[in-house]
């Protein structure tokens, strides 16, 4: 299931219909809570496109509240639901704030650039980044296919895929994995 959340609409609906700037922690917390409410209504694995296209300004505190704290809740071994996130409409100044927030918690996310290309943003080690890039090129694949592409042992490829999946950077369907943008 693919969902689309326009962050600017959430901001106007939950905080003030005159605001176009995502600033201050209380604002960020309110927007994140509403996003979590929307997510909780969706059952099964879901990919949620979080769209910043109509957000004018995003400050550091709000990036922490909206993006980092949302990801923190879902990454790791026991997420409340099988949710994945893809950021879209992120401008360079938005990215400054988002990257600073991700760095604090050693988090990462996948972002879709204006040209449709996918970018891995945040803290990712070289091996995970290589695996993510290889998977992006392969599309959907199992661990042994990725191992061949990377020239690594299948067990190592499987561990990398499991780590990326735990970080919500790729989706898993049975024994195969899919990059977020391709799943779209």
């Amino acid at each position: 299931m693919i969902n689309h959340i326009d962050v600017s609409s959430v901001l106007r609906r939950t905080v003030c219909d005159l605001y176009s700037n995502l600033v201050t922690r209380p604002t960020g917390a309110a927007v994140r809570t509403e996003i979590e409410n929307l997510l909780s209504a969706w059952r099964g694995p879901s990919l949620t496109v979080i769209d910043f296209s109509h957000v004018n300004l995003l400050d550091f505190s709000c990036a922490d509240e909206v993006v980092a704290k949302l990801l923190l809740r879902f990454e790791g071994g026991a997420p409340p639901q099988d949710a994945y996130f893809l950021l879209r409409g992120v401008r360079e100044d938005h990215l400054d704030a988002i990257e600073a927030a991700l760095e604090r918690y050693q988090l990462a996310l996948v972002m879709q650039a204006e040209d449709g290309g996918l970018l891995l943003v945040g803290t990712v080690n070289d091996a995970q980044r290589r695996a993510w890039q290889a998977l992006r090129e392969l599309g959907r694949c199992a661990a042994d296919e990725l191992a061949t592409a990377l020239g690594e042992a299948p067990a190592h490829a499987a561990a990398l895929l499991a780590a990326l999946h735990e970080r919500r950077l790729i989706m898993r369907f049975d024994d195969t994995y899919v990059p977020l943008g391709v799943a779209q």
Partner: protein
Amino acid sequence: MTTVINVPPSLDDATIEQVLDQVAPLARDQKILIDARHTRWASPYALTTLLTVAQTRAERAGFAGPENDDTASYWARTGFYKHAEQLCDLHGHVPRARNGGESSVLLEITPVAKSEDVHDVVERIQQKAQAILVNELHLDPQATMRFAMTLSEACQNIVEHAQRGGWVAVQTYTWRQRLGRRVVQIAVCDAGIGFRASLESAHGRRISDRWDDGMALEDAVIRGVSRFRDPGRGQGLAGVRRFVGKWDGKLSVRSGTARIAIVPSWDEDVPLVENLAPFPGSQVQITIPERIPAR
């Protein structure tokens, strides 16, 4: 008995210390008269700090404004008198703000106490900031958004930590003495609990023997420490530091008896000053210089 506090002719982050030196030894309920009759110039930092001085007095202060018409008119246009009359008994002529198409005041002195105030400040600054930062100070258009982010984070320090309202002001002016160029300056001042008490309020924080205002400022401004355990906290000032570094600007934060500064090559300030006159709250100044276009 009223104690007269003499305000220097030129009032900036350095000379405002003369005012604070005079105020510090006085009891809060001691009546004071802030005498700015001979003042000819004041930076936004100095104007917001003057309001903060008045805010700290238990006995309502008196205030005598500049006698020079241009100076008085400018102070009126910054919104200074509008707030001063709430806090002080004004003496002498109180000028009215003339609508002279003043472009140097990007944001007149604005109270900040709650999150909604920060939204208001950010909404108001953006349109004017774009025109002035890009067209007049020759900053990259990308700087406009970062400037507003910086302003937002600086204001949030009041909302999150001060436990008392403060003021923000943004102005441009030509800084002849130190730089010989135009600058844009953000001033955010409050008379709240200050950095040291804010960090001390952190649950379980160990206070070392060397703990003082200077160390509190180093922790908060340089190391990004916050009173909250949440590792996401402390990003605001870190973001301000990055912005200031990128645009060759200066950041200074005064709190209690100390002042810390990120000093660019064009300024001769020192990174840390201690043993200043004690003063409540925190006073933040961010200065971004005009860029000289490459020939």
